[in-house]
C-alpha cells in the first residue's frame, strides 16, 4: 500500500516537534546568577536561509509582554528578568510565501524559566508548508489506495469465506495466517538474505502448508470428527489466535520491521496518483491470484465440488464427493491467498506481530458486508470496505477511518441483514 503523503509529513513534523521540545533543555547554558535570562532563537527557512523581519511576541507572568522581530541573520532575543512560564508566539503572517510552520499548532511555544541566567533557545521549525493538493487529486489517490487495500482484504476474505462456506467455521485465527506469512517473508529476506522475489513465494508456499494443510489436518479435522459444535470451534479459534499472536510476539518482539530490500522505494507519479513499483507488482500478482481462485471455483471439478459442499454437505457426500478432501483443498487455497495478503502488507508497510489482528476486523467486515460464505460477496465487500476506509479520510480524521468502515458495516446490517449478496438464511 502506498503511504499517503500526509502521513509522511505528519511523521516528519512529529520528529521536529520532538527536537524542538528537547532543545531548550539541551542548549540551556548555565551563566552567572542575577544576570537576566535570554530567550533567543534563529528563524530559518526550509532551505536553511535566514528569515528577517519575522515578528515574535512574548507573554509572561505579571503581565509581562514584549515584541521583537528577527534581524538580517534571522536571529532574535529578549531578556527576561523574572522566573515563570513564558509563551512565545511567532507571527505566521510574516513568513514569506511558501514557508510555514511544519506543525501549524506549534505557532506558540511555552518556555519555563526556572533559573535566571540560564538562556533558553526557542525553536520554530519552518518547512515548505503543506502543499494543498486539489480535492480531485486527493480523491484519485485515495481511490487508488482504497482499491489496493480492498485487494489485500479480498485475498484474506476469500479464504475466510470459503472456509466458512464449506465447514461453517468462523475463524478468528485467520489474521494470524497473514502474520505468519509476513514473518516468514521477513525471515527469508532479512535474516537468511534471500531476495524478496524468492522470499515471498517461499513464504506463501510454507504458509499454505503450515496454515492450510497442517492446521486443518491436526486441529480442525479432528475437531470436526469429534463433532465439536460451530460456536465451540469459534471459541477454539479465538484461543488459537491468542496463542499464535503471543507466540509471534515471543519470537519476533513487538516492533514493526521493514524488509531491507526496496525499503525506501520512491513512488512513481502517474497522472494524479503516486504508486511505488513494488506496490504495482504485488497488487498485480494479487489480482492474478484472485482471478485464479475464481476460475478454480467456477471451472475445476474440485472448485465445483467445494461449492456443492458449501451448499449441502450431506448431499455432496452422498453424490460421491470426498467432503474432507474438498475441505482440505479449500483450507490450502484459503491459506495461500491469505499468506499472499500478508506478503503484500509486509513488502509495502513492514511486518509486526499485530498485523493479522489489525486486518481481521476489516476482513470480517468485508465478508459480512458481502454475505458470509459467498466468494463473489467477499470480493465486493472487500472492495467496498477498502474504498470506504480510504475515501472516508476526505471527511473524517485519518485515525478514525476504520471506525467509519465498521459503522457502515453496522448500518448495512440494519437495512439488509443478509449482506449485499447473501442469502436470507443467516437471519436468526
Amino acid at each position, binding site marked *: 500500500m502506498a503511504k499517503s503523503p500526509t502521513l509522511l509529513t505528519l511523521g516528519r513534523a512529529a520528529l521536529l516537534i520532538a527536537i524542538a521540545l528537547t532543545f531548550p533543555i539541551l542548549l540551556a547554558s548555565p551563566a552567572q546568577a542575577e544576570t537576566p535570562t535570554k530567550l533567543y532563537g534563529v528563524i530559518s527557512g526550509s532551505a536553511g536561509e535566514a528569515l528577517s523581519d519575522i515578528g515574535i511576541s512574548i507573554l509572561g507572568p505579571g503581565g509581562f509582554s514584549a515584541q521583537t522581530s528577527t534581524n538580517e541573520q534571522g536571529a532574535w532575543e529578549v531578556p527576561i528578568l523574572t522566573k515563570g512560564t513564558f509563551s512565545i508566539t511567532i507571527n505566521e503572517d510574516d513568513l514569506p510565501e511558501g514557508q510555514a510552520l511544519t506543525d501549524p499548532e506549534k505557532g506558540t511555544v511555552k518556555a519555563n524559566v526556572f533559573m535566571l541566567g540560564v538562556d533558553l533557545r526557542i525553536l520554530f521549525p519552518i518547512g515548505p508548508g503543506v502543499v494543498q493538493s486539489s480535492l480531485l487529486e486527493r480523491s484519485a489517490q485515495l481511490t487508488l489506495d482504497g482499491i489496493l487495500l480492498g485487494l489485500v482484504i479480498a485475498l484474506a476474505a476469500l479464504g475466510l469465506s470459503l472456509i466458512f462456506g464449506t465447514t*461453517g467455521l*468462523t475463524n478468528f485465527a485467520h489474521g494470524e495466517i497473514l502474520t505468519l506469512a509476513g514473518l516468514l517473508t521477513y525471515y527469508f529476506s532479512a535474516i537468511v538474505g534471500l531476495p524478496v522475489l524468492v522470499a515471498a513465494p517461499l513464504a506463501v508456499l510454507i504458509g499454505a502448508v503450515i496454515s492450510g494443510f497442517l492446521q486443518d489436518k491436526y486441529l480442525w479435522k479432528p*475437531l470436526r470428527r*469429534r463433532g*465439536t*459444535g*460451530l*460456536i*465451540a470451534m*469459534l*471459541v*477454539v479459534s*479465538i*484461543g*488459537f*489466535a*491468542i*496463542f*499464535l*499472536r*503471543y*507466540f509471534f*510476539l*515471543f519470537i519476533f518482539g513487538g516492533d514493526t520491521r521493514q524488509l531491507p530490500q526496496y525499503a525506501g522505494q520512491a513512488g512513481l507519479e502517474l497522472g494524479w496518483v503516486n504508486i511505488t513499483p513494488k506496490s504495482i507488482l504485488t497488487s498485480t500478482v494479487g489480482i492474478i491470484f484472485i482471478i485464479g481462485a475464481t476460475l478454480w471455483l467456477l471451472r475445476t471439478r474440485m472448485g465445483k465440488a467445494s461449492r456443492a459442499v458449501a451448499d449441502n454437505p450431506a448431499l455432496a457426500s452422498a453424490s460421491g464427493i470426498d467432503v474432507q478432501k474438498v475441505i482440505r483443498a479449500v483450507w490450502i487455497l484459503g491459506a495461500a491467498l491469505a499468506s499472499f495478503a500478508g506478503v503484500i502488507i509486509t513488502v509495502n508497510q513492514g511486518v509486526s506481530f499485530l498485523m493479522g*489482528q489489525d486486518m481481521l*476486523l476489516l476482513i*470480517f*467486515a468485508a465478508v*459480512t458486508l458481502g454475505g*458470509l460464505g459467498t466468494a463473489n460477496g467477499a470480493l465486493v465487500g472487500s472492495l467496498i470496505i477498502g474504498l470506504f476506509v480510504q475515501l472516508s479520510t476526505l471527511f473524517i*480524521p485519518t*485515525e*478514525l477511518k*476504520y*471506525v467509519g468502515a*465498521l*459503522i457502515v*458495516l*453496522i*448500518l448495512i*446490517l*440494519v437495512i439488509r*441483514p443478509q449482506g449485499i449478496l447473501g442469502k436470507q438464511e*443467516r*437471519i*436468526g
Partner: protein
Amino acid sequence: MDFLFITQQTLSATIGVNTIIFALAAIGLNMHFGYTGLLNFGQAGFLAIGAYSVAVPVISFGLPLWVAFLIGIFNSIIFALILGIPTLRLRADYLAIVTIAAAEIVRQIARSATFNSTLGGSDGITGKFGADFFALNPFKSGLNTPILRFNANDLWVIITGWLLVALIVFIMWVMVNSPWGRLMRAIREDEDAVRSLGKNVYLYKMQSLIIGGVIGACGGFVYALSRQSVQPDNYGTALTFFAYTVLILGGAARVFSPVVGAMIFWFLIVFIEQVLRQAVANDLIPDWLIGANQVSQIRFMLMGIGLMLLMIFRPQGIFGDKKELALDAKA
C-alpha cells in the same frame, strides 16, 4: 524461589481487584451468552463505557461521582440499545462479528486525538476522579499478612467490590429463577418455539443485552476506580476474550460460575507468572529460552491454549451442565 511471596501474590490476586472486574464482566456475559444464547463479543465496549463514564464527568465536567455512576448506567443502556437494534436479529456468528466491531469502535473513538480534550486520547485519563469514593475509606492502613497483601485503597475497593458482586449475583439468582429467566433459557434453546407462544423474542433479547451490559459497565466502574485512571487500550478485544475464558472456565448458565471462574483464572495466571518470574530470576530457566520480560507473553500463550483445550474437552466448564448448555443451539 520465594514460595511465600508467590503464595501471597497468588492468593491476593485470587480475591483481588482484577478478579472482581472479570467476575462482573463474565456475569454480564453469562446473562447474554449463558442464559439467552447471545454471542456478545463486545463486552469490552460495555466496560469501556462504564470506565469512561466514571472518569469523564468528574474530570472534565466537575460532576460528583454518584452522578457519574448514574451516567455510566444510562450510557451502557444506550449502548445496548444501539448495539441491539441492528444485531439481535442476526444469527449467532454474525452477532459475534458485529458486536466485536462495535466494541472496537468505542475503543478507537476513545483513543483518537479528535476527542483528546475530553477523552484523553491514547493516554487515557488519569486523575483523582475517585476522590469522593476513597474519602469514605474507613481503612487507614493496608493489610500485610504472610498470605494476603493489599494497600488501604485496594482494600476498600475489594470490600465494596465484593459486596457489589454479591448483590449482583443475588439479583441474577432471583431473575434467572423467575418465569422471566425460564423464558430467557427457552429463547436460548428454541427461539421459534417461544415465538409460537406469542412472546416478543426481540424484546426479551434486548432486555438481556441491557442487563448484561449494565453489569459489564459496573465492571468498568471498578476497573476505573481501582486504578484511578482509564487507558483505552485496556478495553480491547482481548478483555472480552478473557471474560469468555472466565465464563467458560466456571461453566456458563450457572449463577456462581463466573465468580468462581474469575477466581480460578486469576489464581492460575498470577501463580504461573510468579513461578516463571522467580524461575527466570533464579536462572532455573536459561535466559536464551525465556527472557525476564517475556514471561507475560508465555502467560498469554498458555491462556490461549487453555481456552482451546477447555472448549474442546470440557465446554461446560467446571460447574456447568452439558445438557443445559447445548452450545450449538444457535449455530
